[in-house]
């Protein structure tokens, strides 16, 4: 499936990109995170187990075991700090 992936705040800066389109062969958000970690460097660091980040699918925060629908807008970002 094809996903649109967007990054915010510290992750956007560390990954050096605000968004990308990705062909993805996995099923869940955890699979996607694992696929991104394989890139190494900042990806491996920021998405390592135990690091605090959030995944939203079509603008709703989801748990890592959530399935990703084809064409989804997937956002990965640090815990929010507004307000």
């Amino acid at each position, binding site marked *: 499936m094809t996903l649109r992936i967007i990054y*915010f705040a510290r992750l956007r800066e560390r990954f050096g990109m605000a968004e990308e389109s990705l062909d993805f062969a996995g099923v869940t958000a955890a699979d996607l995170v694992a696929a991104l970690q394989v890139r190494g460097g900042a990806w491996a660091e920021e998405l390592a187990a135990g690091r*605090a980040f959030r995944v939203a699918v079509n603008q*709703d925060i989801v748990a890592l075991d959530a399935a990703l629908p084809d064409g989804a807008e997937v*956002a990965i970002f*640090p*815990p*929010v*700090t*507004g*307000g």
Partner: protein
Amino acid sequence: MKIVVQSEPFDLGAEVDAMRAGRTDIGAIASFVGLARDMNAGSGVAAMTLEHYPGMTEKALARLVDDANARWALLDITVIHRIGRLLPGDPIVLVAVASPHRGEAFAACEFIKDFLKTQAPFWKKEETPEGTRWVEARASDDAAAARWSRD
């Protein structure tokens, strides 16, 4: 109900006046203004920049407002959150809640404020003498939101 994300300043008095204009059923309006401080986590802060996730932000705020309406008897809610670069002393966020009774207005205002801190996709970056840094989420914010959970 009014939910806005904007870079411009807001006017607390005008917003609250708009809520009560022509109404005689409101007994209480509780409001909250969050402001940019010159100090955070031990460092001077010269300015901050608020980034957000357009689309999801409005959706998350609308859900928060719906949740508050479902829990309390409320008459009106206004939430305004600013984005972009702000200086110390600048207002960042406004939450105002109108209700027939003061208890509900206060509870709902604090509920929205607490969840906004943990649910709405905003991120702050601060300019300090040591350089720029992204503000880290605080465990105390999660704790503040968690106290509203219904077991």
